[in-house]
Each structure stands twice: as C-alpha cells, then as structure tokens.
C-alpha cells in the first residue's frame, strides 16, 4: 500500500487546462455573492439575525477566517517544503513509503478531532486552531514536495552534476525549479483544505466564518448559517482560483 497514489500533481491538470475557467470562476463567485446579498435583503431579519448579519460582523469573520488560513499556510510552507526536500534526498529514500502511507491515512484523521484534542493541551483560541490546521495541512505539501523532487528525470540531475554544479546549485537551479508545479499543486490543495478546516476553528473559539454557520444552527436561524456557508465556499473557490493563476504564472517556461 505504498507508491501508487503519486499521480497527484499531474493528473489534476485536465481540470484546470481551459483558459475559460480563469474568467468563469470569479464571474460565478460574483454572481453567487450578488444573489446572496439580494436574497438576504429580501428577508425580514429579526434581532438575533441582525446581530450576525451586518457588515461589521461579516467583515470581521471573513478577516479572521483569512488570517487563520494565511497564517496556517505560511507555517505549512515553512515546515513542509524543507522537510520535503530532506525526505527526497536519495539517502533518505527509506522514509518515502512512510510519508506516502501517512499522507494517505492522514486524510482520514478527523480534523475536528485534532482541533478538540489540541484544546486539551493549548486551551481554546486562535493558536489552537492554527496548530490543528498546520498539523492537518503539512502532509499534503510535504508529500507533493517530496514526490515532485523525486519525479525529476535522473538524467537531468546527472548532467547537472556532470557539468560541475555543486549539490546546492543542482537543488536550487534545477530540481526546485522543475518541482515548482508539483509543490504549487500541493500548496493549492493545502490552501483550499485550510479554508475548509478553518470553519471548524469556530468550535474552539478561534472565530472565522464557521461561527456564523454554527450560531445559525444553534439559534435555529438558517439565513445566518447559509450566509456563513456560502461565504466560506466562495472564499474556497476564490483561493483555488488564485492558486490556479499562480500555478500558471509561476510554472517555469519551457515546460
């Protein structure tokens, strides 16, 4: 049960191939947001709903949500990319199947469980959510970095060594450049994942749009839940779209 899930980085390609998608996604997001706004403005909001569905609260929740997402992703990059590089070196190959299996099973570890368990150590709050998010998102990025580096044609590394590049030069000028698409694909996955998991931050009092979803359910005010849910989904689609743009722009030319 090891190395057969490697297709990750490449096989996602057909989905995002069309240029149309680059225009369609933001347009669709805008339409959904406008529709949401129009729908909410037709509603007769009671005082409880008004407490959540106003500009200040929504902006604050969106900002909290984005802060959580961005901070977690930044930490993930700092942790996972160097680890992925270390894991990809040939003397560390023995660890490859461990990471692949862990990456697979790690998907099954419930993030809500991780978050709640983290509260027993760290208490509730932003840092707790951050720790949970990072633990959850590290594996996909680590795995993609490692696989991306391992997938590089060994002939390229050999000719780089053969022409007298130092190991560091080979890594920086050849291997990392060629692994950029795979690493970016992993990052994009992690970002979208994090946006979703960040909704669970509300369960450990870390704020974010999850709060709207949960409060709506708790107080039996469906419009609040729907606004929270639709906004989160829109943010996820928007970030995925940004990721696809980044992949397109940062992919080395010639490939």
């Amino acid at each position, binding site marked *: 049960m090891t190395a057969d899930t490697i297709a990750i980085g490449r096989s996602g390609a057909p989905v995002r191939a069309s240029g149309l998608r680059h225009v369609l996604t933001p347009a669709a997001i805008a339409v959904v947001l406008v529709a949401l706004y129009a729908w909410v403005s037709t509603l007769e909001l009671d005082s409880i709903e008004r407490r959540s569905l106003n500009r200040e609260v929504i902006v604050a929740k969106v900002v909290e949500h984005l802060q959580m997402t961005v901070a977690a992703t930044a930490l993930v990059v700092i942790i996972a990319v160097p680890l992925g590089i270390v894991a990809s070196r040939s003397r560390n190959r023995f660890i490859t199947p461990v990471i692949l299996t862990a990456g697979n099973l790690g998907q099954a570890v419930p993030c809500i469980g991780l978050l709640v368990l983290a509260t027993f150590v760290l208490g509730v709050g932003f840092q707790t959510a951050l720790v949970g998010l990072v633990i959850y998102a590290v594996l996909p990025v680590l795995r993609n970095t490692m696989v991306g580096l391992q997938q590089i044609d060994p002939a390229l590394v050999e000719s780089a060594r053969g*022409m007298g590049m130092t190991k560091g030069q080979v890594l920086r000028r050849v291997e990392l450049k060629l692994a950029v698409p795979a690493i970016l694909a992993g990052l994009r996955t992690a970002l979208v994942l994090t946006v979703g998991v960040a909704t669970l931050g509300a369960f450990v009092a870390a704020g974010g749009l999850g709060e709207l979803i949960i409060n709506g359910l708790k107080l039996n005010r469906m419009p609040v839940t729907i606004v929270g849910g639709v906004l989160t989904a829109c943010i996820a689609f928007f970030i995925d779209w940004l990721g696809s743009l980044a992949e397109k722009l940062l992919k080395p030319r010639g490939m």
Partner: protein
Amino acid sequence: MFDRDPAGVRIELRGLTKHYPGQPAPAVDNVNLDIPAGELVVFVGPSGCGKTTTMKMINRLVEPTSGEIRIGGEDVLNLHPDELRRHIGYAIQQVGLFPHLTVGENVALVPKLLGWPAAKVADRVEELLSLVNLEPGAYHDRYPRQLSGGQQQRVGVARALAADPPVMLMDEPFGATDPITREHLQSEFAKLQKKLRKTIIFVTHDFEEAITLGDRIAVLRERSHIAQYDTPANILAAPADDYVAGFIGQDATLKRLALLTVDDVPAVGPVPSSNGLPRVDAGTSLREALDTMVAHGSDRCATPSGVLTYTALCEAVGTDGAKTGHEEVAAGDR
C-alpha cells in the same frame, strides 16, 4: 586547469577499480589504459560490462574504490569533484537538457559556473550553436521541448563543449536518435573532432559507431576487462580473440574496406579516358568502390588518379587476391 600541450591533454588510468559494497565482484576491475592527447577513444562492449562506470569514474560521478586517474598529468582524485567536472565536457544519451531553460541558457551554464563575463558567454553560445549547425537566431531562445531529438543531441554536444574543455566524456550521445539522424550526427561530429582535437572518451555498444568515430577502440568484456585496445583497422585486421571477433561480426573485411578510401590505394595504369569502366570519385571508400564494381560486373573501376583493380582491393586489406582474382576474371572472359 590541466597542463595542456599543443595536442591537448592525455588521460591515464592505473589500476582503476570500482567495487560496490555488497556485490560479490567488482563492477570495474583493475583497468589500465593510456588515452593519447587529442584522440577519440571508444569504449565498446555489451551492456553491463562496466564501460559507463569506467567513464563516470573519470569525472568522479562514480568514486573509484582504488586506482589512479591522471588527466594531463594531474591526479584527478586530488581535485574537487565539482571543479573537476567544470573542465570536462559531458554528454549523455538522454541528453539531459534542462527543460526550464532555453537552448542558449543551457549552453551558457558551465561558462557561467566558471564565472566568465556575460559578453564572452554570449559570444561563445553563438559560436557553439553555429558550430553544431543550429542557426543561433532561430534556436537561441527556444526551449528543449520545442526541438527534435537530433537537434537536442546537437545542443547537448554544444553544451558539453561550452567551456572549451580539453577532455570530453560521451555516453552514447547519439543513441536515442533514428538511424538516419544518427549517421548524420556521427559524420558531423567526426568532422568537428578533426577540427577540435579534444581528448574524448566515447562509450557505445555499437561497433559500427566505434569504427566510424574512434581513433582507437577499447573492446571491453565484463568488469571492464580490456579484450583489445588498438586502432579500428588493426582490430578488424587482427582481432585478439574470439570475443573481439564476435563483436566485429561476419563482415570484418568489408568493414576494413570501409575505413579506406580510393586515395589510400596506389592506382595502376594510366588515367583511363572513356573506356566504359565504372567511375568513382576521390574520397570514395573502398567498400563503395567494391560495390560499384560488383554492381557493374567489372573487376576494376576508374578513379580520378587511375584504375582500381579487384586485386589492389584485396592487397589493401592484406589478402592474397591476385590468384583468385585472375581466375574469376578469366572465367568471366570466356
């Protein structure tokens, strides 16, 4: 880096051995070889015989277990491997062009590693692309994936030559191309080498290629043991043993004829006018001349300097063709 005499640098291998840990026998066992300056030496042998490992020890992509390698008198094992490799051209079958860099950037890599000034690098890239018959204006900014296999191989050769290294290591550099392209690349490369006179170690399993390109051939058997090391003509004329003979194949004599041209054989008789003899041009190989003779049912043909006879052909490769030749002609006359 290496002491170059006018002819280039020589390479000496002494007791060169590579024993991979955990293997019962060494992959390369006690190789002793002198490669004269400015010559192209071909390592030829079946796959797995250790020829590539032997070659890779010279630029230390494989570290020798024991033995000595001297390039231009300098002990390679005392040099820093990265520094060493920047002064040895290296071309491999998979070419290994970096897909994220343009053709120009690929060729410019080693000169840049060596810290050449930008202007000098740019000039050198232009010069090299022209040298391998790729129009610099058209190819400089293309990416490797936009090139055909043959064009990629040329860029690979240009890249290996980039910093003007006195020594080149080439591992089946034309192996991945179709036969027609390969023949074309081989003849171009042979011409290039005549001009450049680098000291080259060239690895192949294709004996024809070895004959075409090599100044000398080292026929290797397993563990890189040298079965024979000599010029192509000498190996064809006198294979050291059955192993070498097996490598040459059934048509050793034809291969030897292919190494000689009509200019190498003293022509007999006056320059024929138009007496109906088939004609061959100067520079034609004796193999082609023989082909022309057989095709015309004649035992002689006209060359620019005289008449080339079947007997002369036989004598050129050292067989006593005189008697049989006459008998056949006599039979043909009847």
